[in-house]
């Protein structure tokens, strides 16, 4: 009957096809098609940027934790342990940096630089802090970048990901810390070294302050030499650097002038008062 016929008609024109036919009546114009592709392009770009921001945040957090850990270092027995643990932490950070390098394959690094710069600066601060504790010297940017050349860890990476090398046998990824990020990281390092100076006196270590004073002066001289050649963010750090250096120099002065008067076990007290004053200045609780 007619009911059956009508039913079959519905089967011949299922809902989805009907919609498609309607679209075919009004096909998207060239302009709309273009904008649809723009949407895709922008979304892809933004997604990548966000992934890199997240990685940068992870890098920042883990680097900061490494710095806190390293502040607990003393030449006491647990020193070796702390250094080893810091290396483990920094390896974890480097694995994150590897992911950053993989995200940037085929891209212009500078397009995404603002996303990763904070993390890289913090990493420079952490790794140079560790290097100073181990060697009493400043790590170079070349040395830092040498550690940021990565190879595939397992077969999965080799087959799935694109990389720098054309030889599919051993793909490599690398990231270069820029001179500016390096300088900004080193500038922040001086703040940690200043804290190290104050705390080392509290631990009865009266040699480190003088070593630090000399070291910081070298760095300060370096930044003075650079002056305004770099971007504004670098010159801005010079002010804080000068303050850190001044605090260290004052600590050395106090040690020199009053060190002989005060029994060693009371030296810590002298500097803890000073530290309170300094912390008050910086607005710390």
């Amino acid at each position, binding site marked *: 009957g007619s009911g059956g016929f009508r039913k079959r008609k519905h089967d011949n024109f299922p809902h989805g096809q009907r919609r498609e036919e309607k679209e075919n009546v009004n096909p998207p114009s060239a*302009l709309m098609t273009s*904008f649809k592709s723009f*949407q895709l392009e*922008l979304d892809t770009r933004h997604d990548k940027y966000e992934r890199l921001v997240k990685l940068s945040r992870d890098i920042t957090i883990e680097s900061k934790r490494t710095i806190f850990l390293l502040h607990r270092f003393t030449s006491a027995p647990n020193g070796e342990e702390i250094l080893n643990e810091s290396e483990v932490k920094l390896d974890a950070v480097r694995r994150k940096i590897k992911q950053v390098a993989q995200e940037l394959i085929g891209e*212009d690094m500078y397009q995404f630089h603002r996303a990763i710069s904070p993390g890289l600066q913090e990493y420079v601060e952490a790794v140079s802090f560790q290097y100073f504790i181990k060697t009493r010297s400043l790590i170079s940017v070349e040395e830092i970048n040498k550690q940021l050349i990565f190879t595939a860890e397992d077969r999965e990476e080799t087959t799935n990901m694109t990389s720098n090398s054309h030889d599919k046998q051993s793909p490599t990824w690398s990231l270069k810390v820029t*001179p500016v990020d*390096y300088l900004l990281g080193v500038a922040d390092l001086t703040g940690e070294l200043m804290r190290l100076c104050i705390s080392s006196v509290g631990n009865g270590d009266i040699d480190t302050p003088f070593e630090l004073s000399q070291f910081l002066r*070298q760095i300060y*001289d*370096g930044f003075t030499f650079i002056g305004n050649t770099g971007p504004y963010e670098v010159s801005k750090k010079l002010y804080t650097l000068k303050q850190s250096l001044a605090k260290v120099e004052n600590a050395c002065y106090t040690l020199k002038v009053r060190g002989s008067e005060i029994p060693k076990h009371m030296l810590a007290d002298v500097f803890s008062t000073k530290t309170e004053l300094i912390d008050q200045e910086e607005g710390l609780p």
Partner: protein
Amino acid sequence: MSVSEMFAALQGALGQDQDIREEIRKEVQALEQTAREILTLLQGVHQGPGFQHIPKKCQKAREHFGTVRTQMESLKTKFPADQYYRFHEHWRFVLQRLVFLAAFVVYLESETLVTREAVAEILGIEADRERGFHLDIEDYLSGVLTLASELARLAVNSVTAGDYARPLRISTFINELDSGFRLLNLKNDSLRKRYDGLKYDVKKIEEVVYDLSIRGLNKEATVGAGGEK
């Protein structure tokens, strides 16, 4: 390497970077000058007699774009080809301005939206990053948004000059442009802010069309437009 040696090397790198930027700035200044000349030329279409001279102005503008192409070739040589985004901030503004001017010329000629590839060709650059000095999509979109504002102004001045058909065509064009932009998921950056201005352009043109329609002026226009087109 001693600390002072390290910093000397770093200072060298920073100095080199500054030198490159200085060279780029000079090239960009030249481009800005040419852009100003094209803009001054095209702004003339807003005045009464200017409407008749549109084809001539477009032709002249295209000649100026020849100068732009030459200047672009010069700019490309000032920095390593694979570091476009390192120095992008220096030419971003003038490039957006040039996109707008190219889009304006193409609109005046054909009343269509110039494609990204077409703009790139007019400016003598690439459309894809992989092929070299290219037009970033956000710069293209910014330039297009500036075109929208210019057309809103043109709609108003068309009426003043007695052309009642043009605003209607501009309205169709801008509305389609608006639909296109609505597809985009923009972040809270300068492009987003500029896009926010588009709705005021749409509104302004709607008001012009409304003013024409309630006075029956657009009916005259469609009658006339049939013959013109």
